[in-house]
């Protein structure tokens, strides 16, 4: 049967459908058989596509991979890839939706803490690859009048994430990556929740626990709440000392001034 020659765009959409939707109807007729079926030839590309994305997920989620095993991970990744494909050629950015996917992935339901581990690993992945940015020059804050300082809204360093986990995700994550079975079996998964700060320091990526109130205050600042509002909402601990620590470590890169300090929703 003669098939009309497709335009380049039609052909590329058809190949996309073959790789992503497993629907080779549109593409097969345009492939030269040459001793092998078009399906066999297309399979080479389908395997590379699925293999490359599974590898990208494994690199971003090494503890999840160890916890569930290679075969289970490959299967879960296969389902994930059908629903979520990368939007750019930077595969470090691929897989942000994986934790949410795992939380509703029925076969993984028995490992209740798995989505928490995945969320922590995504934060670690972000911290590993976030752009290099200069920390905020604190002299710029010092130059502000008192009233202006109350209106400061910080911009967090892109490597900083705040993770709240129902389970002791930090302990499990560390024990799994260090292959420390003794430590892992000593962890009580119900010993949560935990409030975590993940960031990249000059020495590497750090995952540290915070008190709930310190975490909430830090979250408020990272979400861009004006400084006076964030301080008002955090009355029961030394928020100013924590703020000084954030500034000293370089967790903020910039700030803007809120229009009116009392008007924040």
């Amino acid at each position: 049967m003669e098939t009309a020659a497709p335009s380049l765009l039609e052909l590329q959409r058809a190949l996309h459908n073959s790789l992503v939707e497993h629907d080779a109807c549109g593409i097969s007729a345009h492939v030269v058989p040459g001793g092998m079926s078009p399906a066999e030839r297309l399979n080479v590309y389908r395997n590379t596509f699925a293999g490359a994305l599974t590898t990208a997920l494994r690199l971003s989620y090494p503890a999840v991979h160890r916890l569930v095993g290679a075969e289970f991970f490959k299967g879960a990744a296969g389902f994930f890839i059908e629903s979520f494909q990368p939007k750019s050629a930077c595969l470090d950015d691929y897989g942000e939706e994986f934790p949410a996917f795992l939380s509703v992935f029925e076969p993984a339901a028995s490992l209740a803490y798995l989505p928490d581990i995945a969320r922590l690993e995504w934060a670690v992945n972000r911290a590993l690859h976030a752009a290099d940015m200069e920390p905020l020059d604190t002299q710029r804050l010092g130059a502000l009048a008192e009233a202006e300082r109350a209106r400061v809204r910080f911009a967090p360093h892109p490597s900083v994430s705040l993770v709240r986990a129902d389970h002791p995700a930090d302990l499990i994550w560390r024990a799994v990556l260090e292959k420390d079975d003794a430590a892992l079996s000593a962890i009580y998964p119900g010993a949560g929740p935990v409030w975590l700060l993940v960031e990249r320091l000059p020495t590497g990526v750090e995952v540290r626990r915070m008190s709930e109130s310190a975490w909430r205050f830090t979250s408020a600042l990272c979400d861009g709440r004006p400084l006076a509002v964030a301080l008002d909402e955090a009355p029961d601990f030394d928020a100013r000392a924590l703020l000084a620590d954030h500034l000293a470590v370089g967790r903020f890169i910039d700030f803007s001034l809120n229009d009116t300090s009392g008007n924040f929703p």
Partner: protein
Amino acid sequence: MDSHAAPLRKARDSIPAKAGVGLRFRHHQVVLESHPASAWFEVHTENYLGGGSAPAYLDAIRRDYPVSLHSTGLSLGSAEGLDLAHLERVRRALERFEPGLVSEHLSWCIVGGIYLADLLPLPMTEEALEVVCRHVDQAQSHLKRRLLIENPSTYLQFRHSTIPEWEFLAATAKRTGCGILCDVNNIYVSACNHGWDASAYLAALPPEAISEIHLAGHTVRQIDGGRTLRIDDHGSRVAPEVWTLYADALARFGPVPTLIEWDTDVPPMAVLLEEADHAAALIEEAEIGNGRALAA
């Protein structure tokens, strides 16, 4: 440009017509510590677009070696146009690392805003040639650099293709002024998979456009009916037949910067250097051959 700084920079920036090695993450530390005898290194651009340790390693390695940036994500053959945000990220990487060579593939990987994570084959048509040339022009003008375009390994051909791949490559180089990154292993793999004549492929390429050569290992997959398909998996030593074809390429093109690529089960640096030494010996033979030809 600062004329006083120029000679030093040039020596450091340009990729010599010698054998280099594809640098992968597992070798960052060993390169800094042991300073292996590779004439230059090439990295995959897309692995160094963020921040953190990987680009910091490359900054440090770049101080001691010429470096080439090899892209896989520009998708020069996409009908819908280039991903301009990605092109800009690549431009910033060029600014940071000042590579001696910049390359991409004769392929596509993006449609409908989805990145398909592979070097997908193009139909060899006039329409595709126009699209590729337009995008090479656009990329070269945005990056302010000459691009090298590499022939990919392919596992299928399209019925409506009308231009042989070697002519497509030569036409792209002629129309856009880009160079050709001649992957000798890919020529061999595609020639076996499609029944082409690998030597005729080499002979059809314009020598003046050849600015780099790639070498890598591939595997042979058995298909039903006793047939085979060669898969370019970069997971082993260069095949003997590919070394032979490489010697032919050097005889035709003269000494060209040559890279050993290895991406699957990356071996210790020593193994990569052995492969690079083999390439270096063939480059040296080609230089002697060239000298004889000139003297005659």
